[in-house]
């Protein structure tokens, strides 16, 4: 069971749809949306709950469009 849970928030207006964040996500959380932003780019979006907040996507994003959140899940004690 994962002990951390991450979330990404993509600034959809800033995203230019370069897709560099897709291959670096080991959890396969990021996919390009079918929708367009006002500049006409398909923006990146989070598609599942597997994100662990590793920040790889935010590090390679040239436009700084991704904010990464991470929380530690509390371990439940046995007994």
């Amino acid at each position, binding site marked *: 069971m994962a002990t951390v849970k991450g979330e990404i928030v993509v600034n959809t207006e800033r995203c230019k749809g370069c897709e560099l964040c897709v291959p670096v996500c080991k959890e396969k959380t990021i996919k390009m949306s079918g929708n367009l932003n006002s500049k006409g780019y398909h923006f990146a979006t989070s598609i599942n709950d597997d994100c662990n907040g590793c*920040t790889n996507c*935010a*590090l390679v994003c*040239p436009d700084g469009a991704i904010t*990464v959140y991470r929380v530690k*899940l509390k371990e439940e004690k046995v007994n």
Partner: protein
Amino acid sequence: MNYIPTREEIIADHDNVVYERTCLLTDNPLSYCPGCGHGTAHRLIMEVVEEMNLQADTIGVAPVGCSVLAYDFMNIDMQQAAHGRAPAVATGIKRLMPDKFVFTYQGDGDLAAIGTGETLHACNRGENITIFFVNNGIYGMTGGQMAPTTLPNMKTATSPYGRDVETMGYPLKITELIAMLPGTYFVSRQSVHTPANVRKAKKAIEKAIQYQKLNKGLCFVEIVSNCNSGWKMTPEQSNKWMEENMFPYYPLGDIKVPKEK
């Protein structure tokens, strides 16, 4: 069963943020093509300046080229220089204000073509400035013409059959060239196409900024970058092409490091 917070609960608390865009980049949308390494390089430099709390003491010099509008994106004091003359302008700024952190941000057309003289002499004089050099092997802004750093047999708008080294010469390894000069203190070559390389590049930028305080000479960080528009590839393809073709000619790593005492 453990309680798993929902997405809304996680993003509502700003304490959970582990990575966000630095406040030293302005809200202006970057003028670069999608997937261009310039954006990452801008962000890394500004992140380091923010982490070292130097934003009030930093003066950047913007070049001519794709990054000509760097002063619109970096939320610090910036000066625009004539084409290739950024090291000369930075020399003047640093000599007048030696307490400031002064850096130039230049592309390969600016630094390695029209500004070779300024660059070499600033390095040879050992000016206490930091130069960030983004090398993508092509003139990106003007439409993908051949640059001094273009690889042999690489097709560009002005070398449609590939760069013929017999008539057009060899790619200029300016970073190795200036590393031989005694005026330089720290010379490194990095890239920003994978998370691991981004982390390494950030460390090199940190060193280049820290060493400027020692007044021992010029610090120089080359960032090998892609130009997917100029190379006519997708961002992902261009990064792969860069790994296969650029890195054998421009190997990554520290080229000149200060001797430990």
